[in-house]
């Protein structure tokens, strides 16, 4: 019996290796195509002379991207919006999470439940009334409008995740600080936050990537080039069904880099974050 088991194990190993190869190809070919396209001249991109591998690699598409399109403006807008969203949701999240983790009050469970519920309500349900709201408040076409809309999903998310982490910070340290004359806020800033740096980093990068990658709100609440973010800017390379695939793929590649780098750094925590801690990663 043990021999058959090790035999099947070897078999599964080889099946595993084969499937792994297939999955790697399936996963990576699109990225190959993206980068290859961005390195081709138009002649190699379209028509009968289209190539699978760039024969004459060129950075012309990138030059066009930077010189003839508002790409850098989009990047600037995305950065402003993602950084502001992150900063605000960190502050709001820390305050709320501390209250939920450490203080006793009526409605604590209800609020905690509300946070999860809010995180799960999809933006595609909210964008129509939010659009009406933004128009009424003249927040359409402003950075502030988008930031506020993004807070709607980053704040509940940050608060919930930080609450879980704050609970794991030993109570004794904080009590000692309180006895030494610290206020509650003082204890939060001097004791709890320094011990929660990894959680803060994770939450910050989650908010950043969510705001950076968001498309629906950005597409609906913004029309002007001055405010447009990178995700919606990319779709503008389609003009009346004529595509500029070279610069577009170049732009796609460049704007996928920030969230990708962030993800590679934080991949270990990604699972725990997205499932709000329901799956231990």
């Amino acid at each position, binding site marked *: 019996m*043990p021999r058959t*088991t090790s035999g*099947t194990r070897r078999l*599964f*190993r080889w099946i*595993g290796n084969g499937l*792994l190869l297939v999955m*790697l190809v*399936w*996963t990576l070919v*699109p*990225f190959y*195509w993206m980068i290859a*396209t961005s390195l081709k001249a138009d002649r190699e*991109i379209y*028509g009968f002379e*289209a190539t*699978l591998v760039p024969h004459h690699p060129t950075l012309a598409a990138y030059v066009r991207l930077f010189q003839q399109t508002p790409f850098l403006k989009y990047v600037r807008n995305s950065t402003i919006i993602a950084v502001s969203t992150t900063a605000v949701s960190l502050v*709001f999240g820390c*305050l*709320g999470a501390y*209250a939920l983790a450490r*203080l006793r009050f009526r409605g604590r469970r209800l609020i905690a*439940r509300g946070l999860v*519920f*809010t995180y799960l309500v*999809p933006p*595609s*349900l909210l964008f*129509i*009334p*939010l*659009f*009406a*709201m933004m128009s009424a408040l003249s927040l359409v076409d402003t950075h502030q409008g988008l930031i*506020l809309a993004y*807070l*709607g999903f980053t*704040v509940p998310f940050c608060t919930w995740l930080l609450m879980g982490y704050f609970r794991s910070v030993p109570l004794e340290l904080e009590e000692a600080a309180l*006895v030494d*004359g610290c206020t509650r806020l003082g204890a939060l800033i001097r004791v709890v936050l320094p011990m929660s740096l990894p959680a803060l980093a994770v939450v910050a990068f989650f908010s950043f990537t969510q705001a950076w*990658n968001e498309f*629906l709100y950005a597409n*609906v609440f913004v029309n002007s080039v001055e405010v447009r973010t990178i995700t919606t800017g*990319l*779709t503008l390379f389609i003009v009346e069904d004529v595509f500029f695939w070279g610069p*577009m793929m170049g732009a*796609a590649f460049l*704007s*996928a880099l920030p969230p990708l780098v*962030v*993800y590679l750094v934080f*991949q270990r925590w*990604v*699972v725990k974050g997205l499932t*709000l*801690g*329901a799956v*231990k*990663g």
Partner: protein
Amino acid sequence: MTSGVDPAVLYPDERAVPTPVLRARRRRSLTGRHEARLAYALLLPALLVILGFVAYPFVSAVYLSLQNKPVGAVGRFVGLANYAELFRDEVFFQTVRNTIVYTTVGVSLKFVLGLTMALILDQKRRFNNVFRMLLFIPWAVPVVIAALNWRWIFDDLSGFLNNFLITVGLTRDIISWLADPRLAMGCVIAVVVWQGTPFYTMTFLAGLQAIPRELYEAAEIDGASVVRQFVHITVPRLRTIFLTTVMLSTIWTATNLQFVLILTRGGPANRTEIFPHLAYVTALGARRLGMGAAVSLAFFPLLVILIVLLTRRMLRQTDD
């Protein structure tokens, strides 16, 4: 007085009452009100955001769906007229069918592929962490970029797929992947699966690695086959993760309109029209905000069941 709580008030006779139970009770009775006031103050910003940008829009969606409201004009109350019109519309029922197919097929494929990949990455192998990193990349890239990239791959004349198939000699005709009514939905689902599988792989792998090795070793000694080990150890241990992942992903898959918006815009002939995209087109294309709200709300009852179940599940799992 909300933020400055005097520690002397908090711990009036810390050493005299050493038992934690007593101390907690005493603390609560003395400073309960201060503590509650401070808590509400700390929570205020987060609650305002949630009330203003989630709760209020949600309620106003209901009210909006009862109005005839063009973009930029004052709404007129029409009762249930929007819903009545919707339920007479053939496109609406086609959208219901499409959304169900799109979501169930997408989620099932992601589940199967994700579980397979997790099991493979759980085997001992050199460079496994490199493979894992590479396989997770689609998840980290913005969905718009993934969708645009695939639209370019599916391109009739110059896209990678036709280009490749013709070069290899598998076909001589140009295939219109996204414009062919028989192929369009399959293509959209393929992209959804490509982008969403890594999330399944990640959660399942996390679950697999949390199973104690001893269980498998004991089963091995008892002579249980690999398949039996999978059925009797792996599956039961992963059950909660399966459920959580599938529910989360169902919500995300069913409500994401970016794939359809960029790949097919619901075409050809509404073959790939799904709820969130129909709501988008109605509200912003036809500029009927009230009707658009009605479309998304018609879809909401199904969703709310999932959201409520999932909320309960997540609270339970993170509480202990």
